[in-house]
C-alpha cells in the first residue's frame, strides 16, 4: 500500500496523463456510428502497435552479445511492425468503401 502511495506521489503527473488519456479515449469513441466500428477497431489495433517502440528500445539497448535479448527483440520488432503496417494498411482498405460516389 505504501509503495503504491509513494509510486503515485512520485508519478503524479503520469497518473494525470493516464486519467486524461482514458477520458479522451472514451470521449472520442462514444458516439461513433456503428458502421465505423470495424475500421475503428482496426485503426485502434494499428495504434496499439506502438509497442514496437519498446521492442526497438530492447534491440537498441541490447548488448550485441546478448543473443537471447537480440533474438527476442528481433521477433518483437517483426511482430510489432507487422501489427503497425498491416494494421494501418488494412484499415485503409476497409475505409475504401467510404469513398463518395461520384
Amino acid at each position, binding site marked *: 500500500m505504501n509503495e503504491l502511495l509513494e509510486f503515485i506521489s512520485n508519478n503524479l503527473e503520469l497518473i494525470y496523463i493516464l486519467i486524461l488519456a482514458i477520458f479522451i479515449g472514451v470521449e472520442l469513441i462514444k458516439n461513433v456510428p456503428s458502421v465505423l466500428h470495424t475500421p475503428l477497431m482496426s485503426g485502434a489495433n*494499428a495504434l496499439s502497435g506502438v509497442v514496437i517502440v519498446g521492442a526497438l528500445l530492447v534491440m537498441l539497448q541490447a548488448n550485441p552479445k546478448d543473443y537471447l535479448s537480440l533474438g527476442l527483440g528481433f521477433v518483437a520488432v517483426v511482430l510489432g511492425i507487422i501489427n503497425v503496417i498491416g494494421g494501418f494498411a488494412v484499415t485503409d482498405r476497409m475505409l475504401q468503401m467510404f469513398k463518395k460516389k461520384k
Partner: protein
Amino acid sequence: MNITLSIIYLIATVTFVIGLKMLGHPETAKKGNLIAAVGMILAIIGTIFLHDFEVASINYILIGAALLVGTVVGWLIAIKVEMTKMPELVSLFNGFGGASAMLIGIVEYGNKVGDAMQTSTVIAAIAIGSITFTGSLIAWAKLNGSMKDIRLPKYNLLNNIVLLGLLAFSTYIVMMGGNHLFLIYILLFASLVYGILFVIPIGGADMPVVISLLNSLTGIAAAITGILYGNMVMLVGGILVGSAGLILTFVMCDAMNRSLSNVIFGAFGGDGSTEGVAAVGKTGGTVKKTTASDAAIMLNYASKVVIVPGYGLAVAQAQHVIHELELLLTSKGVDVSYAIHPVAGRMPGHMNVLLAESNVDYDKLIEMDDINPQFPNTDVVLVVGANDVVNPAAHNDPSSPIYGMPILDVENAKHIIINKRSMNVGYAGIQNELFFNQKTSMLFGDAKAALTDLVSELKNM
C-alpha cells in the same frame, strides 16, 4: 532523453488523438488513419535515430532487417487479403502486437528485477501480452472457420479459477522479489493457456466484440511497457487504445443489444446460448443475421436496390418509413425501385394502397414480369415482411402448396436482405429456403422499427 525525440513523441501522441478522432467520422476516417500512421512512423524513426546511448552496428542491421521483413509481410498480407477476411486479419495483427509486448516483458524482466513496482509492470506486460496473443489467434482461427465453438459444462468456473490463479501467482512473484526466471516462464505459459481458454467458448458471431476487447488489452500492454521505459508515446498511445477499445467493445455489445458479460459468459454452460443459435434449413444451411448498420452500408454502397414489400409491411404500417428510406437512398445516388408481386399482402393491390398512402411514385412500382429480368444486375434486394412471394419452393419443390406460383426471383440478385420479425412462416405456412441462402442476411425485427433504424444509420453515413 533527447529533447527532439521528446517533441517527436509529443507530436506522435497528438496525431494518435487526432487520428482516432477522425476515424470516428465516415468522411474523415481515411485521413485520420493516415495521420495516425504518419505519427507512428515518426515515432519509430525517432526512436531509432534520436536516442542517447551507443548502439552496435549489428543491432542496427538487425533492426533494419526486422523492420524490413515485418513491413513487407504486413503490407502484403494486408493488401492481398479478401475483403471478407479482414476482421480475422485484424485479430491476427492484434495477436502479434500482444506477442511483441510479451517478448519485451520477458527480455526486460532480467533488467528490472528488484523494484517491486517495476517487476509488477513487467509481469503485467508479459501476462497481458500473452493472453492477447493466444486469444487473438483463437479468434482468428474461429473467424477463419478453422475452429468450431467448443462448449463444456462448468467452463465458466474453470475459466475464472485459472484467471484468479494467474492473478495470485503474479502477486506472489512480485512479493517474493528477486530474479525467478523459471516462475516467469510458468506465468508465461499459464497466460498463454488462459488466452486460449478465454476465447474458445465464445460464439463465432460474438468474435468482433472479443477482438475489440483483446485490442483494448494490447493497448494496455503497450501502455505498461511505456511505463517501464518512461516512454510517453507508448504510455499515452497505449492508454488511448485501451480506453477507446474498451468503450468500443461496450458500444458494439450495445449495438447487438447484449451485455459484455453476456457475450463472454453467456456462452458458457450451454444454457444462455439459445438466442444465438440460428435455425437450420432443409439443405443444412444456417441463417445469417445482420444488423441495421451493416445493412445500411450494403444499401448505401449499392448502385441498384430493389425493395420487395409484403404483408409484413402492412402489418407494421411501415409504408411511410420505407418511402423515407427510398428517398434517402435515391438522394445518395442509388437506383431504387419496388418489386410488386401480384399477390403480396392479403388483398389484390394491397401494396399499391399502402405505398400510395405514403406517396411513393407510381413509376417506382415495377410488376413482377418486368422486374424479374432485372434481378441479376441488382446489387441488393431488400425484402420487407414478404415471404411466400419470394419463396423459391414455388420453382423447386413440387410438393409445396405454392408450387407453380410465379415468384419474384430475388435469388438472382447479388445480395438479399430480408426483414421480418422471426423465422415464422407466411400465409402458405411453409418454410422458405431463401432465408438460408448464402447471399441472404436476415434483419430481424418489426418492419417499422427495423426500417427506422436503417434510415437513421443511413443518415449518419
